[in-house]
């Protein structure tokens, strides 16, 4: 069973406006390690899809950020994480049963340690 990470875009990802600290490489690394990844942002879903495609990343989901509960319902995962840069991101994430990390906390890629922890269980 996988872990799921949802990224906000503006203020969180390096290609957001304003740019955030989470790089495409970090996203790619998580995906390569088997994480389910996607974005929940205020950008139109169709625009989110285009932004990922432009970076040659095939995401598992895109959605408006208030649709986090739907993402949780669609995917079975061991852990659900949303990374964002606003109080509202935190509020929506926690209401939807996601763990939440601020964008600057995500830069350290703490999710990589989950794999080791899970392997040890």
């Amino acid at each position, binding site marked *: 069973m996988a872990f799921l990470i949802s990224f906000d875009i503006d203020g969180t990802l390096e290609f957001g406006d304003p740019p955030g600290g989470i790089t495409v490489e970090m996203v790619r690394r998580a995906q390569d390690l088997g994480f389910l990844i996607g974005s929940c942002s205020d950008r139109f879903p169709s625009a989110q899809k285009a932004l990922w495609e432009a970076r040659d990343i095939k995401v598992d989901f895109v959605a408006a950020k208030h649709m986090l509960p739907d993402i949780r319902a669609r995917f079975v995962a061991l852990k659900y994480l949303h990374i964002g840069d606003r*109080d*509202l991101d935190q*509020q929506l994430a926690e209401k939807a049963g996601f763990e939440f990390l601020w964008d600057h906390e995500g830069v350290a890629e703490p999710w990589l340690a989950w794999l080791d922890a899970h392997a040890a269980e």
Partner: protein
Amino acid sequence: MRKQSPVPTEFDQPFYDACNEERLVIQHCPACNRFQFPPRTMCPRCGASNLTWQQVSGRGRIQSRVVVYDSPVSALIPDQPFNVATIALEEEPDVIMLSHLPGVPVDAVPIGATVEVIFETTPATGQKVPEWRVVG
């Protein structure tokens, strides 16, 4: 809900003092025979500055509503989403006040319902402010 505490000035002290006494007092222009809220230094219609403070019934009607999901006010963010309704005063329906309609479930505001004023204590200073409850 944790509203910000309004800080009265010399000018609007009568309104806020009355709130602390649980009375709803608003301005009235004798020349136009018209109520107004919020308080202003003059009547915007005729320019008169001899406005009086008058107690009103504290009854009104719910005119419209929104549900706030993304408030700019930090103190209210934990309570999102929440109702905000416009209340048209019984004495003069063009005079509009706002309400969180305490006790009314989100997105279930009864448009047109009769309401009466209550007073809510704001936490920072204890200043009371008008709120409204549905009575029918």
